[in-house]
Structure formats: structure tokens, C-alpha cells
């Protein structure tokens, strides 16, 4: 199979002037801090609220992204699917208790289009701690995001979680 010619998940230089980018960057960093605080606190049923009604959310490996393959470890079309996943994880699924800790850095604002949609990226590390286990790097990768404005706040219209981690340790329970 051949590498995809899709440029979506490759490096794109920022097309914004420094002052505009800096202004938006501050908002996105605050958004991501709140997003991660919700997940790290185990409040998974609040997680869909960071997305628009018709948002796309996908977690997939860098290998799939490079090959242009569409599969997701998690693949949600719309906030309702995210809600269903959050409820399933929180109320029906069996798994060992764990703590999650997200570290999000290197946030970049790549572009703002005519409709005001913001294209941004950030690096993330997900540290997992199981009962009587060490704290380990569970997933490492990038967020490829599209934000829109809704009133005075940002919402995700799309979040593609592309992880470098090639062999996942056992499973991935919560969204990233």
C-alpha cells in the first residue's frame, strides 16, 4: 500500500501574522486546558459539550493517517455519537480503574478561513496510571483541530487525534 498524498496531517506553515496567531493561541490554550481538565477529572459525560452538534471526532494512528486510511479507534460523527460513547464508558463498560493525565503543548494556529474557522494543532501526551502500577506514557501524538466560534466561546468542529504510539498498551478506555 502506498503513502497517501493527502496533506492534511503533514506540517503546514502558519498563514497568520504573529499578532493574530498569538491572540487566538491564548484562547485555544485555555480551551484545551479546560477540555483536558474534564477528561482528567473523569467527567467524561461533559466531554461532548466541547464539540459542535455535527462535529467529527476520530482517534487514529499516524500509520493510518499516513496511508490515508479512515478507520478510528474512536470514530464519531456528531455530538450524539460522542454522548453515546461517553455514557457507554461511564455507565456500562467494565475496566480497571485508572487515572489519566493529559499534557498539551506546542499549540500552533495554522490558519483562519473566511468563515472564521480556525485550524490549529497541538502536541499531547496521555499519561496513564493504573492501581498499583507506574505512571506510563499511554499515547503520544497531535491534535489536528478545526474550531468555530459560538457566542463568546470556541467549539471543536473537528478533532483528529493522530497518535504516534504504534502498539497500544492493552486498550484505550476514555476519549483523548
Amino acid at each position, binding site marked *: *500500500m502506498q503513502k497517501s498524498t493527502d496533506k492534511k496531517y503533514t506540517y503546514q506553515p502558519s498563514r497568520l501574522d504573529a499578532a493574530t496567531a498569538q491572540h487566538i493561541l491564548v484562547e485555544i490554550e485555555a480551551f484545551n486546558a479546560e477540555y483536558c481538565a474534564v477528561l482528567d477529572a473523569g467527567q467524561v459525560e461533559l466531554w461532548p459539550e466541547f464539540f459542535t452538534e455535527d462535529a467529527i471526532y476520530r*482517534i487514529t494512528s499516524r500509520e493510518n493517517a499516513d496511508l490515508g*486510511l479512515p*478507520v478510528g479507534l474512536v470514530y464519531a460523527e456528531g455530538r450524539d455519537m460522542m454522548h453515546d460513547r461517553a455514557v*457507554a464508558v461511564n455507565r*456500562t463498560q467494565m475496566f480497571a480503574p485508572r487515572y489519566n493525565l493529559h499534557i498539551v503543548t506546542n499549540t500552533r494556529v495554522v490558519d483562519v478561513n473566511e468563515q472564521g474557522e480556525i485550524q490549529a494543532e497541538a502536541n499531547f501526551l496521555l499519561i496513564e496510571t493504573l492501581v498499583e502500577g*507506574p505512571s506510563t506514557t499511554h499515547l503520544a501524538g497531535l491534535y489536528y483541530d478545526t474550531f468555530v466560534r459560538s457566542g463568546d466561546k470556541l467549539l471543536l468542529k473537528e478533532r483528529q487525534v493522530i497518535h504516534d504510539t504504534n*502498539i*497500544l498498551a492493552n486498550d484505550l478506555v476514555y476519549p483523548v
Partner: protein
Amino acid sequence: MYQSQTVIGQTLRSKDLPLSECKWPEDHLHYIPDWVYVSQEVYDREMELIFRGDTWNFVALEAEIPNAGDYKRSYVGPVPVVVSRAEDGTIHVFENRCAHRAAEFCRESHGNTKEFVCPYHQRSYTLKGDLQGIPFKRGVNKEGGMPKDFRNEDHGLRKLHVTTLNGVVFASYSDKVEPIEEYLTPEILEDFKVTFSGKKLKILGYYRNELPCNWKMYHENLKDPYHATLLHSFLVVFGLLVAGNKATMFSDKVHGRHGYMASAKSEDKYATVDEANKKEMRSFHEGMRLRDERFLDFVKEFDSPWSVTMQTIWPNLMVQREMNTLGVRQIIPNGPHSMIMQWTMFGYEDDTEEMTRHRLRQGNLMGPSGFLGLEDNEAMKFVQEGIRRSTTDTNVLKLDANKVGTSESLISEASIRAMYTYYRQVMGF
């Protein structure tokens, strides 16, 4: 965390038995000794007698390597191999080890090439695994170089036998393994051909995860329909599998090594569970409903009485047809306490864009984050930990006692019994 990151978790020495001390319990049908899951000597013998024995090992789907020069890395048991398509369209499988100094030369998971070149001393091999070129073969200024009697044809890569069946590629170390159709046995072959009818596949992507458990547990889990109705409350809530649904746990009639767990979904989207069954199912959640029900849609695309089949093909392949989400899972054993699961999800080349998206949406059931997948992984991890660290030493299989093989009841361990009856024969236990 990976198995290798375990902090508390030494295996009791008394369970890591040498082969000479491995004695199966007397009531051999109803007990499995812990040492089959933890003994290094048992594991080594399995690799020799099972994965390198008279078996066909899944290595690839043809759709992954459609063109001449396409290749992918794969595994037979724990041994890294390369699957390659030559100029004449034939498929070849050889060990990923240079015949010179053993370097694992193929590093990319997929690609297209005209030849394989070992990066260490630039030996080159053809797409069929034959030695093609050696730099400075005749030396420099008539000094050094290979001896005159060195014949390239004696120094190719270690090649395996290859067979294909409707787009699925298998490899074997054995000279005497039967043809693949016969290997699968008639009923397994029939179910296999539902998913693999010869229609061209479209690869949708990969998942890869480590399960910190013995490789056999994955087979057992898919020969254990009892757990599905209890552990996977998601299935139960949404009526994908309910004790009482039309279902079967089939074991192949020749050896009992292959099988499939199958069920037929009722017409209603959500299951009704009667009061008596409800009491038995602690995880049942009354009134759970999805906000986005597209996820549960079942597009009837196959001529089969079953809406779900999970097929286990000995020793390393699972074929998943869970409504419209299709995939193969390849087991890569990684020592007694670990296995890698390599998932390849697919649809068909003639799928509409909407059908592809439907498969992707329904894919949330499966994989390392799937509503079913993650619970299995957790449960098997718990079992391996329990086995390694406790002082009792047998697993008890008394459901549907004395029965070996196919069962129409989900409350049965007859199929696991069939697998171990075959296993004991092969392993000499």
C-alpha cells in the same frame, strides 16, 4: 501500561514448570492447568509444534499488496516475516532476516520496491526472496571477496510456503500441511466464504495493541459464548447478543481447533429480556437508549442466517463479521505473558461512501477502544494476573459438562474443551 512495565507481578516459580513436570489434571476435560499460560518451556514448544508446525498462519490480505513490488511486514507466530508480491503477481513470504548477518532488513510496515536491500552490507534480494547481489563479490584488486564455490542460490532468505484463499494470504513452515480448504474444514470454510466471497476488499485501517495475556486466551475468549452475555452489557442492552437469541458456538468437526460464535439479531433494535434472565444478568441496564441509532443499523449484505460471527482459525486468525463491521485479527504471540493483536479493518471495493461510513461508525464496537474490544482486553489481563500471582493452579470448566464441541447453548464451555482436547494431542500432554 505494557506487560514489561509491570511493577508488582512476578510469576510464581512453581507455575513456570519445565515440560517434564507438566502433567494435565486427571479430569482433563474440566480443568486447565495454570502452567499452559505461564511456562516458558510450554510456550517454546507451542511455537515449534503449533506456529511452525502443520498449520496455516494468516499473514496478510491481498488487498494490502495489490501491485507488483508491494510488500508488508508481518509475523508467523513471533517470527517477523515479509509478505511480498513479485513482478509476476505471485505472493512470497520469507523471514525478515538477512541471510548474511541476520539483520532484520525490512523496516517499513508497508511499501513498494523493486528489490530488498539489507542496509548493513547492501546485500540485495529479489521480491521472491532470492539472493541477487553482493557488493564486491569478487573482492577488490583480486583480493578478498567470496570463495569461488559460493552459490547465490544457496543463500537466499528463509522462505515459507504460501497459499491464498479468496484474497486472504496464509503462510506455513510445514511441508506436509494440508491444502487450505481442507485445513479449514467444510463448515468453517463455508462461513469464511461469507466474508471472503472473492469480492475485492477495501482496507479501512489498522489497530495494534499488546494484550498482557497468553495467546491462547484470545481463542478461548471467542470460544466462550457464556462471557459475551455477561461481560458485554453493551451487547445485552442493545440486543446484539442476549441469552435466548438464536445462537451457536460451533467447533470444527475434524479437530475442534477452529470455530465460530454466531448469533442472529432479532428484528427489534433493542432487546427485551425476560424477568428470569434479567436476574441473572447483573449488568443489564433497563431502558438504555442511544441518541444516534445509526450505529445499530444492520444492512443485510450477506447470505447467512447469522448477523454476527466471530471466527477463530487456528492458530493465529480471527475473522470478525459483527453486523457490518468487518475485520481480521492476527495474533502475534510475544512470550507466555503477552501477545500483540494486529487488527485490519476492511469493507468492499464496491461499497458506497455511506456504506464505508456506516462500517466506520459501527467499528466503535471493536478494536482496543471498542465497546466490546476493551472489555475483553481488560478481562484477559485480569485472568493472566490471577494465574501468575495466586497459589491455586487450575481453571475450572464445568458448564455444559462432558460435552466437547459444538453447542447451541451459550451457557457452555464445550468449545474450549474441544480446543484443549486438540491442543493436548498436538503438544503431547
